[in-house]
């Protein structure tokens, strides 16, 4: 706590910087119609990504319970909106709200006689978990997860209360999206981890007055199913299936873990993970920036049976290494697509560059107590997507960005604040966030 107090001023300064950046006058004022939010396949990828991040944390820290919430605000979406007062449409500043909550439990259903704890289990660099003991080898663990992501545009309303001051309120605007995961996890510790779950995608139209009724209507829900199998925490396979097709698959190899089975890993060697991912990203949908194959005879109102599909293949590697209190990490992702892409605006072929994204980040841990971390991360990145020039004033489709994160970790509670601009992690989730500042706060309680 003493150390926390020592750094509280630094935290305040960083938070002020984050707020100041939001109030500078360099906002992009590119007006557009909300579109990619309607892509349920992309949203399913996002909610799964966080699901897997939570389970990486649960398993590497031997948690029995994890409750997590994340609030993410993307500022300065200028949306063409109908003004009932003027009966005209106008560009109105909106805020995209993305909220995520998660609750997961994991407990043993079978425990063999106690054996020596497995020392090969990788340790999360943000938490050395001195407060928890590893599961016994050959234990069978059962887990349940319920988590959900909400996306939606909101409009801020300024309320002048006279001498009682000024406050603000918010209205829902346009379609609101709710994506939920319900999953079962089975672990044969430390050999096999299996996740099986369903993603439920739902859209709700708010009322004209800015309120919304949570109408849970099963007939409007679309389902996706996902599985993940990890062997020896080294080889991991993940896939997502819609009702009629395999939407994505991802295979990754934790090379450092693999090497540790045979040899002692040299101290200079970073943690290395390499993977391959296939994702049916382009589907001739109205929100896609490109046509697949050809633009001849295609329109945004075409029949589903005429739509063509293109897979994006990406090959990625992630490196991380710690030097005392200093943590470094980087990643690069290469890409190619298995069909011709045609720009919807110009009818010209789109050439994807080899490098889809890269990022590099460095962090410094201000605390040295085991189980307690206060890490300040800063990072830079680049990102390519053919929709970038659609949703910004960029003349090309790649952009650079930055992010800053403060991660606070204690044995039972974690807190995190993140500010970013054109961060590849965020653009990968929602390319419309290009040229917009993003603030994110998250907290977890764990046992």
């Amino acid at each position: 706590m003493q150390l926390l107090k020592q750094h509280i001023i630094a935290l305040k300064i960083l938070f002020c910087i984050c707020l100041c950046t939001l109030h500078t006058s360099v906002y992009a004022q590119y007006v557009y119609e909300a579109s990619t939010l309607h892509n349920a396949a992309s949203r399913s990828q996002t909610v799964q990504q966080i699901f897997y991040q939570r389970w990486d944390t649960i398993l590497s820290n031997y948690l029995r319970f994890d409750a997590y919430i994340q609030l993410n605000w993307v500022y300065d979406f200028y949306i063409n909106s109908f003004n009932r007062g003027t009966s005209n449409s106008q560009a109105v500043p909106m805020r995209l709200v993305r909220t995520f909550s998660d609750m997961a439990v994991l407990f043993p259903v079978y425990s063999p006689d106690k054996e020596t704890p497995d020392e090969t289990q990788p340790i999360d660099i943000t938490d050395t978990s001195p407060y928890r003991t590893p599961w016994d080898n050959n234990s069978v663990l059962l887990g349940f997860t319920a988590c959900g992501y909400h996306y939606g545009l909101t409009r801020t309303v300024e309320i002048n209360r006279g001498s009682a001051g000024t406050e603000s309120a918010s209205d829902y605007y346009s379609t609101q999206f709710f994506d939920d995961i319900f999953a079962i996890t089975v672990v044969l510790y430390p050999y096999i981890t299996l996740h099986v779950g369903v993603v439920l995608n739902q859209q709700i139209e708010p009322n004209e007055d800015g309120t919304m009724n949570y109408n849970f209507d099963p007939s409007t829900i679309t389902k996706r199913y996902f599985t993940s199998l990890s062997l020896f925490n080294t080889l991991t396979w993940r896939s997502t299936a819609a009702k009629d097709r395999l939407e994505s698959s991802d295979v990754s190899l934790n090379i450092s873990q693999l090497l540790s089975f045979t040899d002692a890993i040299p101290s200079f060697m970073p943690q290395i993970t390499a993977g391959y991912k296939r994702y049916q990203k382009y589907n001739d949908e109205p929100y896609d920036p490109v046509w697949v194959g050809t633009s001849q005879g295609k329109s945004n109102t075409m029949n589903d049976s005429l739509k063509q599909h293109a897979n994006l293949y990406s090959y990625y590697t992630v490196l991380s290494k710690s030097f005392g209190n200093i943590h470094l990490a980087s990643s690069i992702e290469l890409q190619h697509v298995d069909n011709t892409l045609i720009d919807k605006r110009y009818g010209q072929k789109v050439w994807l560059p080899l490098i889809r994204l890269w990022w590099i980040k460095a962090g410094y841990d201000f605390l040295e107590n085991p189980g307690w971390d206060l890490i300040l991360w800063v990072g830079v990145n680049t990102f390519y997507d053919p929709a970038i020039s659609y949703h910004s004033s960029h003349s090309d489709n790649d952009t650079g960005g930055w992010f800053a994160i403060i991660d606070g970790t204690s044995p039972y509670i974690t807190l995190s604040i993140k500010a970013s601009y054109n961060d590849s992690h965020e653009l990968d989730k929602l390319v419309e966030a290009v040229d917009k500042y993003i603030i994110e706060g998250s907290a977890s309680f764990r046992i």
Partner: protein
Amino acid sequence: MIRTLTHCIFLAIVTVNTACSYTADFIEGALTTRASFSISARYDAGTGVIVEWNASPDEDSFAGYEIYMTEEPNNEFAGMIVVGACYDIGSSSYFQVDSNLENSSSRSFTHQKSTLPSAGIYFYRVGIIDWDERDYDGDDKDDKKPSTPNKSLYTSYTYIAEISGSAMVVIE
């Protein structure tokens, strides 16, 4: 084994019911005072604008209702100003004090014709105002509301706990 499985099922049910997309949205909505209930408003040429609502404020901390309207005609996206409250807090000529707004069972407010702005399309909202939780009586214990509320306390220690969606009215 049966006990463990029962435990599993119980935890699964609790988990499913407490963590979903609605939960996080509800929390964010509370942080940003999201419009949470609907109201109706209509113009009566002889009376003025009649605003009606149906809300359930928290009696323990309830301070009053406030009525807001857009500060300029024919603009749904204009800022809003207070036009009705139980204390004299407004600064515009459209403001009127209504002691009924201090009563949590009140369900309507009439914006008198004499205080209405010029003709045009306007939008109304109703705010549910709560007291800050603080020590009002000096006994070193936090109170949910003051025992003898007054205008000074109201302007200093209240906030919008809930707000309605907007209701459109054509004033002629």
